[in-house]
């Protein structure tokens, strides 16, 4: 089993984290620069301590993440992180220009010497407000954009595209991916529709802040659909993301995380957006599951459900083993949950030194 470190580049200044969009009145450039440097330090540490991947993602208009364009962060990491793969999990595909995505991802694969992992996401629903895209079009835009990106990566001669949502008269991207035929692809597997699409198109799946029981059902569905499509997903075709914090002892780790605010759902911070997205049909057949996934919970429940991995190295390994056994996931995407300065760096070091070597045997 492999491990990835996901730093969202959370804003470290004083600002509310339960408002979306967050007003720029709270913004301090000094704090933002400090946040970026802290993020770089954590990624560098993960690379030194053996993490297999580092992960970046796209979020807008919030202190939750200072990477509205994760490609920029990934470009920096391609030079800063020397060994680990760079996982962009991912661009919010339906709100972006797919040819631009194909170009930028190919550029990242080239800059990193073939270390790109390309996640294609629908994003959190509030992101559709960012560039004024109708969330009702989300799945169709996603599907078309993904097909187009694959074509852009693999067609060696110029071609045009007459889509339903995208139209280009001629496409011929440079640079082209180092990895052939293209970098490994992932998408969210949370909904039944997504699992079926991923299986049909031979794409890996990931779960962000799901619960182990929900993810288990979804993985089973994905594997069944993949078998129907004539292939068998490998362990590495399933990524599970959870918040983590490791300390030398369980007591220290729990003390560290006990002060954390509960995880919030960005879309739920704005009732108008939440209702507008719901009415658009964005969630498809998955509305109930989505609500379960993002419900507020106490820390103990979040640990029990596999949303948070916390403890000393042995405790954390047991939690990781459970995720591996329940889901058959091959990649654990670990989110820096507690921004505690040196203690967070120590958490990354401990995971790399004392958990990861034993995790690889799972």
């Amino acid at each position, binding site marked *: 089993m492999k491990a990835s470190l996901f730093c969202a580049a959370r804003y470290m200044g004083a600002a509310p984290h339960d408002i979306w969009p967050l007003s720029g009145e709270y913004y301090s450039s000094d704090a933002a620069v400090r946040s970026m440097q802290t993020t770089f330090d954590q990624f560098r540490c993960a690379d030194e301590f053996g993490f297999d991947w580092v992960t970046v993602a796209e979020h807008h208009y919030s202190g939750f993440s200072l990477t509205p364009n994760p490609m920029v962060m990934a470009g920096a990491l391609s030079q800063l992180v020397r060994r680990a793969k760079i996982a962009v999990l991912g661009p919010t595909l339906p709100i972006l220009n797919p040819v631009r995505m194909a170009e930028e991802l190919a550029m990242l694969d080239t800059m990193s010497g073939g270390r790109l992992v390309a996640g294609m996401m629908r994003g959190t629903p509030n992101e559709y407000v960012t560039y004024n895209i109708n969330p009702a079009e989300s799945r169709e835009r996603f599907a*078309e954009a993904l*097909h*187009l990106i694959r*074509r852009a990566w693999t067609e060696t*001669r*110029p*071609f*045009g*595209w*007459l*889509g*339903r949502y*995208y139209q280009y*008269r*001629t496409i011929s991207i440079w640079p082209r991916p180092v990895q052939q035929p293209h970098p490994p692809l992932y998408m969210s597997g949370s909904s039944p529709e997504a699992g079926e699409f991923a299986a049909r198109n031979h794409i890996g799946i990931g779960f962000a802040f799901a619960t182990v029981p929900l993810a288990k059902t979804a993985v089973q569905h994905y594997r069944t659909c993949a078998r129907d499509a004539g292939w068998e997903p490998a362990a590495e075709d399933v990524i599970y993301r959870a918040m983590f914090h490791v300390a030398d002892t369980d007591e220290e780790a729990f003390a560290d995380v006990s002060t954390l605010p509960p995880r919030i759902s960005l879309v739920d911070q704005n009732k108008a957006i939440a209702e507008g997205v719901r009415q658009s049909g964005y969630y498809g057949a998955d509305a109930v599951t989505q609500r379960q996934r993002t419900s507020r919970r106490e820390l103990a429940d979040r640990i029990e459900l596999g949303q948070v991995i916390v403890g000393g190295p042995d405790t954390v390994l047991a939690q990781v083993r459970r995720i591996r056994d329940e889901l058959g996931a091959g990649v654990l995407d670990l989110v820096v949950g507690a921004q505690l300065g040196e203690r967070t760096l120590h958490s990354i070091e401990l995971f790399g030194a004392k958990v990861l070597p034993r995790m690889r045997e799972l």
Partner: protein
Amino acid sequence: MTERIFAQCWAGEDRRLPYWEAGSGETIVAIADGEGLPTRAHTLLAERRRVIVFPMTTDTGVPQEAARRIGAPLAVLGIERFDLIGEGAGAAAAVWLALAPEAGIGSVVLAAPDGPPEEASREIKRPVLVLCGTKDGSDAGKRYRTLLPDCYFMFVYDAGRAIGAERPEALAFIALEFFERRDLFLVSRENGLVFP
């Protein structure tokens, strides 16, 4: 003929070659697979141009013969200049028609061409646009692209072999763009203004 509703007519010395005609203005000749004609794409084209649709059936003969049979009534109808669409099995006939020295053809669109491309395609002197559905398992479109290195090639997303029925708006739109602007069709002239 100015009606946008297609009328079925008969051509040829024995009046056994069916065709459909609608619209007004400069002429588009479509040679298409015989079933389900005219398609929605033909109707959309007829909103802007005169459209004459010939079916490509087993009765029409091999492509070269079909081109000759279709070319003759066009002359009788007094059509000296036209743009040409070859769809599916009609693509090969369209190629032969485009090669006829007397044919006053502007540009050629080959939509989901069927079967191996005619070697003679290399001799086409007209601008050619090849369309290939992303669900089309055939490699014929790409073989035409190889044979015609100067042609334009576009994928039609979510379409298989019957582009005119599956993505009629897309086919009609790009065909008109290509017929009206030829090589310049590469440059969009769609209005991006949101509010004046």
